[in-house]
């Protein structure tokens, strides 16, 4: 948990006051909609199909229980009783009235929450591993670096009007749970041959209509140079990124047009001119930020306590859930628990106000008052004593967030799609609902093993379809919804863009196609523990294509 101080609180109060003034100027007409647009976007306010939408940042995916209760309050007081967790460690409220937005923001600011820079052409919420500081495979807490960057890039006077949005992700573990390769800037903390911990820096990742994985431009960056290097990247992007065409304005296009090597050289030259100036990180500054991350006072506990072992034997449902949703913690006797926000037949990532309040109570009782939000649109209780798992399961099951489908075919990532979004060409949520219905039999889903299905309702790819093991992209053809299917994508440390299997299929066929692909996989895999993604890698797209289109 990160402790805010008076500076953080003052800044949020000043931001709310500024936004209140901007809304007032909009309501009187002093600002026209075009002028207001960039200002509201920089506060996370979109104009959607039906209403204004408010996007709230959950920096590096860490939430305190009081913040979760505040989100529940906003959902009840200003929205329709629920919120939607996104793929970028944000939460969205879809039904907020413009005139009430400043009040909602003031309420959120009381709990250290805000929508600053969650949209618009600026540096967005900086994301990281939802298992930060608890994962056994991590070398240090990546949130310290995310927080340093967050502060430096908040209301940055030079980089608040970039050509397009700019997303940064940080990972510090051997397994990448933050999908860093699909970000404008990727930072991977690792230990080099000399034993120093620093960053491998990539640029130009991103999905949308021209998907790219980030290219490494700096194999090792010392910690002291993080801010100056990021400043150099952003300065080049601000000056030379394209502004003539919104679809070519992301840094990935600049990197692609210049070539990663040349872009890297230009960054290096700019960086050398500023690296020893005011941005060189003082160890005292790093230590000060690190010291404000507070860690639980863990008990000394043993792994696999008798209560857990007995409960697993006695209760098959519990055992299934533990196997699926509970992961190893770096501290003995504790566990990382994933809460599935993907109940069968429901919109992925949605959470009701009542669920939020209940989760806040559960974490206060069992997980040191902390909650994490991951890019797969699920929540995490990061520090649950293993002995308490049976009680935690009952509590989570009672509010519908213990579906044991984490990482399985029904744990679908989906954007809001045509049900909410003004950009969408096709529905995404109903497709996800239909697929999760088809695979509602958990034995079938478990038999398929790890299988990520990602769905986007338009080419902007908010549902990350390019990096789904099965990717589904909604397009519009002559007024009808069609869906392109890709397979073989992944967003982890072996990131890869998926390959198209053939012509787009109509809405009514999508779930059938996913079933065909799943069936083909079961027949093609060499042994039962060969994952779908590995089978695709081994046999290629062709056998799946044949299967899907043989009867179509």
């Amino acid at each position, binding site marked *: 948990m990160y402790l805010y*101080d008076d500076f953080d609180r003052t800044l949020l109060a000043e931001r709310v006051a500024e936004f209140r003034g901007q809304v007032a100027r909009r309501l009187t007409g002093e600002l026209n909609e075009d002028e207001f647009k960039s200002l509201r976007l920089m506060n996370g306010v979109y104009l959607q199909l039906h209403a204004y939408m408010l996007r709230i940042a959950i920096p590096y995916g860490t939430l305190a229980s009081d913040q979760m209760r505040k989100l529940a309050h906003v959902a009840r007081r200003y929205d329709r009783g629920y919120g939607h967790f996104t793929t970028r460690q944000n939460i969205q409220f879809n039904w907020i009235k413009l005139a009430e937005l400043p009040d909602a923001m003031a309420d959120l600011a009381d709990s250290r929450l805000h929508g600053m820079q969650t949209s618009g052409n600026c540096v967005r919420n900086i994301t990281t591993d939802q298992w930060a500081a608890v994962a056994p495979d991590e070398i240090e807490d990546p949130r310290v670096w995310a927080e340093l960057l967050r502060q430096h890039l908040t209301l940055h006077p030079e980089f608040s009007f970039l050509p397009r949005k700019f997303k940064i992700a940080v990972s510090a573990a051997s397994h990448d749970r933050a999908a860093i390769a699909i970000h404008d800037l990727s930072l991977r903390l690792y230990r080099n041959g000399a034993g120093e911990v620093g960053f491998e820096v990539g640029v130009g990742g991103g999905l949308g209509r021209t998907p790219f994985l980030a290219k490494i431009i700096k194999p090792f960056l010392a910690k002291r140079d993080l801010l100056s290097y990021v400043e150099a990247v952003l300065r080049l992007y601000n000056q030379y990124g394209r502004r003539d065409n919104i679809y070519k304005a992301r840094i990935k296009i600049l990197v692609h047009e210049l070539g990663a090597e040349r872009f890297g050289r230009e960054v290096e030259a700019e960086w050398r*001119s500023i690296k020893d*100036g005011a941005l060189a990180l003082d160890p005292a500054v790093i230590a*000060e930020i690190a010291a404000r991350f507070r860690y639980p006072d863990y008990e000394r506990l043993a792994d696999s306590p008798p209560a857990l072992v007995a409960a697993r034997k006695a209760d098959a449902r519990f055992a299934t859930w533990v196997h699926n949703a509970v992961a190893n913690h770096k501290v003995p006797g504790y566990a990382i628990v994933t809460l599935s926000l993907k109940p069968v037949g429901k919109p992925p990532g949605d959470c009701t106000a009542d669920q939020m309040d209940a989760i806040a109570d559960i974490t206060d009782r069992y997980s040191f008052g902390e909650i994490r939000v991951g890019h797969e649109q699920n929540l995490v209780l990061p520090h649950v004593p293993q002995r308490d798992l049976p009680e935690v399961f009952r509590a989570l099951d009672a509010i519908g967030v213990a579906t044991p489908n984490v990482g399985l075919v029904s744990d679908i990532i989906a954007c809001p799609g045509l049900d909410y979004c003004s950009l969408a060409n096709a529905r995404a949520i109903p497709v996800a609902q239909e697929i999760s219905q088809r695979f509602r039999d958990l034995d079938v889903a478990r038999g398929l093993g790890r299988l990520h299905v990602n769905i986007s309702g338009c080419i902007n790819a908010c549902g990350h379809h390019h990096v789904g093991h099965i990717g589904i992209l909604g397009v519009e053809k002559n007024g009808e919804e069609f869906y392109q299917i890709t397979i073989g994508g992944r967003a982890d440390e072996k990131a890869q863009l998926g390959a198209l299997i053939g012509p787009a299929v109509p809405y009514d066929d999508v779930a059938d196609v996913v079933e065909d692909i799943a069936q083909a996989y079961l027949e093609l895999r060499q042994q039962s523990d060969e994952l779908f993604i590995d089978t695709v890698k081994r046999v290629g797209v062709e056998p799946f294509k044949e299967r899907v289109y043989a009867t179509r």
Partner: protein
Amino acid sequence: MPLVRSGKVVEDRFVRVADGEPVPEQGPVIVSADRFLADADEFAQRQDAVGVIWPNNRSVAELEPHLTRLALIALVFPAYKDGRAYSQARVLRERYGFRGELRATGQVLRDQFLFLIRAGFDAFEVAKPADAAAFEEAARRYSVFFQPTGDGRMTVARVRTGRASRTAPVRSERVSA
């Protein structure tokens, strides 16, 4: 379009001279980038102040040899969401040490004032009179600053770690590679 300097609406003492029009014998003038570079030696001889309006898609490195003879550089915001001139301003102030007037022109709204000040601008051609009147208030909108920039404001990191205040602007110097 009102001009704001030192927090107040003031009269513009510079005359903007279009390309092809004769440059008046006397008085401060602002000319285009092309005209200035073409006649740089001539302008260097001029007694009265010379300013240049510099487009946001041209490197300010071209201006470096002329900076001591320029009284003013006007940088352009064709739309307020086009932020290229913020980078130009910081490079002019913090890398090249430009000390003359740095003027923001184009679509300049009150919501940008503080960003502009922090990037090194000290004069503002403001699009709306109401925004010009609200300058002082907008410039004081925030009291918390995270980035060390050329305006020399104390950053939060420095206050938190109890480091001595810097009164001189923070300058980032070019170092040889």
